[in-house]
């Protein structure tokens, strides 16, 4: 890529930092330059988040319909699969699968709920209600 073609599009990262690109100057020598973002990859990231938002909404519907416990919602919300959640909580995967059932979730002990709350970085109240106070 030539230096004059370094994209300076808007992006989420661009609000925090510009990023280093390796480009060639007019003599063909490599130099570094800073870019605020590139639309092509901003769109890639947007596509990924649109998909995640769809998963979160679908999980919420399932919880509302009592087909799953709030754990499903928070797993989607925190982009965690059962492996990651198992690592964060120290619980076995089969336990987590059981806790995904609303009836089982309702009977969980405060200490188990605390483990989930910490893993998802929310309060126990939020964990039960699915109300989250953050941006």
């Amino acid at each position: 890529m030539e230096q004059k073609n370094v994209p300076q599009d808007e992006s989420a990262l661009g609000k925090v930092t510009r990023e280093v690109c390796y480009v060639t100057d007019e003599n063909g020598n490599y130099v570094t330059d800073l870019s605020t973002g590139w639309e092509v990859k901003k769109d890639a990231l947007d596509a990924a988040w649109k998909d995640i938002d769809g998963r979160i909404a679908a999980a919420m519907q399932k919880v509302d319909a009592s087909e799953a416990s709030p754990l499903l919602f928070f797993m989607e919300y925190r982009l965690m699969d059962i492996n990651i959640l198992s690592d964060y909580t120290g619980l076995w995967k089969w336990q987590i699968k059981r806790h995904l059932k609303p009836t089982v979730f309702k009977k969980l002990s405060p200490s188990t709920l605390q483990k989930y709350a910490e893993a998802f970085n929310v309060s126990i109240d939020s964990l039960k209600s699915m109300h989250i106070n953050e941006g």
Partner: protein
Amino acid sequence: MKVNFEHRQAAHCETGVTTSLLQNIGVTQITEPLAFGIGAGLFFAHIPLIKINNGPAIAFRTLPGLIFKRTCNALGIPVTRKKFRSKEEAANFLQRQIDAGNPVGCQVGVYYLPYFPKEYRFHFNAHNLIVFGKEGDNYLVSDPIMEHATSLSSYELERVRFAKGALAPKGQIYYPTGPAHVTDEQIKKAIIKGIQKNVRNMLNIPGWFAGVKGIAYTGKNIKKWRDKLGLKTAGLYLAQLVRMQEEIGTGGGGFRYIYAAFLQQAYAYIPNEQLLEISKEFTKAGDMWRNAAVQAAGIYKGRLGSQEDFDVMGNYLIDIAVIERNAFTALKNIKW
């Protein structure tokens, strides 16, 4: 307490940390492209069957940790690397390094990294940063991705050092032991070794899904994605490919531009005109990767979507594989 250390921004986290830490102990010749090339950083792999964030597992660089290790080894610099079970022990060890005046590299997860924008926070655990001091409860942090040095509270740092999931960092700390004096002759030898290693990784690695043949394999697969996955999922897969290729820290074109820059810088130590010619081929490969990304964007934005569009996309990769195979073969045939 602040260690004597200068923040440097880089394209990529691991090469950035490697460059900064080596500069700091006196390896004045080292640059990000040299660290990347000596560490044989360029790669391609598309691991079958494994999914990352519901998409394909594609890498444009070698495994995390290897660039630092190979570069230090090639320059004959001893390395300390430690993992921890206990968070307390991890914090104590870090404090002792700060007290001793050593900036250190830390492997961290990005999901709970507060200065990253939310959109970039995935459960990716092989990010690297440097801690170079502590003021009150705040650690002074040099993250190569960032334009300026930043800081993390002790809780925030502990959380990212002990992120969980694949490639969990386990509080990992690493640093080269200095002071070091590296001669230009050593750099020259390290460059040759790095190129030879990278040639092997791209041309001779076993497995149909890795190296230059892996690029062609993915290209052929992409042509089938539309029918096999449906347009929506196929689009998401392409978006993932583009993110791995261009997102935080590849320097553009899936590290191909950094490698082209490396070959130019190598010429200063090994005045062989072929290096400059081959550098141009990697620039061309990088440009083609970016053209492919534009095509992919047409698909995940919904502007394109016919089978012909997927064929064009797949052919980009098949053509790139040819260029990179020729470039690495030319490197292989250089008489050093």
